[in-house]
């Protein structure tokens, strides 16, 4: 501590180390709260269902998503990335996941929402397996903290079925 430069160095080093410790404890404090999210998806209409020239089937659907993700937000949450995926099984792949819609929730107030939309991204199958196919609509979310590790979770909603014929 004999010179000014020495003291500045010591202060900055200790300051940054203590800041890092605070961030670690802040990140660990997230585990104290238990989240309880809920979601519900309704398929309102299958707009069209066609086989493309390459042999792959494509479907367009309109759906309504009602979700409450407010309990996911803590003081250490920056934003929550949420997306809706259609999941189904084919003879070629044991799991197909097609993302239909996604969004970013920037704050707790926006975390309770009702979205009525057609699929943002195209729903194209690898082949032609979709006629009459049963599929799940799973809402996935990634919670991005201000400091710490990001974690992901999901709710699977089952019981949706594709139309039997092209339209």
């Amino acid at each position: 501590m004999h010179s000014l430069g020495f003291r500045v160095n010591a202060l900055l080093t200790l300051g940054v180390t203590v800041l890092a410790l605070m961030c670690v404890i802040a990140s660990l404090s997230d585990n104290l709260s238990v989240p309880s999210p809920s979601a519900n998806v309704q398929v309102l209409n299958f707009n069209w269902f066609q086989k493309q020239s390459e042999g792959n089937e494509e479907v367009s659907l309109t759906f309504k998503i009602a979700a409450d993700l407010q309990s996911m937000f803590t003081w250490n949450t920056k934003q929550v990335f949420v997306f809706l995926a259609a999941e189904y099984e084919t003879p070629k792949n044991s799991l197909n996941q097609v993302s239909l819609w996604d969004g970013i929730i920037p704050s707790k107030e926006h975390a309770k929402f009702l979205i009525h939309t057609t699929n943002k991204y195209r729903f194209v199958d690898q082949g032609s397996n979709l006629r009459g196919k049963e599929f799940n609509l799973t809402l996935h979310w990634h919670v991005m903290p201000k400091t710490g590790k990001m974690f992901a979770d999901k709710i699977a909603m089952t019981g949706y079925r594709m139309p039997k014929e092209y339209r």
Partner: protein
Amino acid sequence: MDWQGQKLAEQLMQILLLAFAVVAFATGYISGSFQMMVLIYAVGVVLTTLVTVPNWPFFNRHPLKWLDPSEAEKHPKPQEAVSAKKKPAKNMI
């Protein structure tokens, strides 16, 4: 700064930074605002810098008593002992 002052400066720095960290974390957690925590801690760092880094007079309350130059001249460093010690050290290398 003198020796006592340096020790005081180091202790003050550590205690102040830790205290501000605890207060900042508690305030941020209770108010649910991460920004509040970072702000209070930043204020704390600035305050600690102002208290411990400049050479304040209260860090110099036990000044060192250096020997008067005229007094030092009366007791010169012995020359013979220095040259005698150097030769054996060179042989060992």
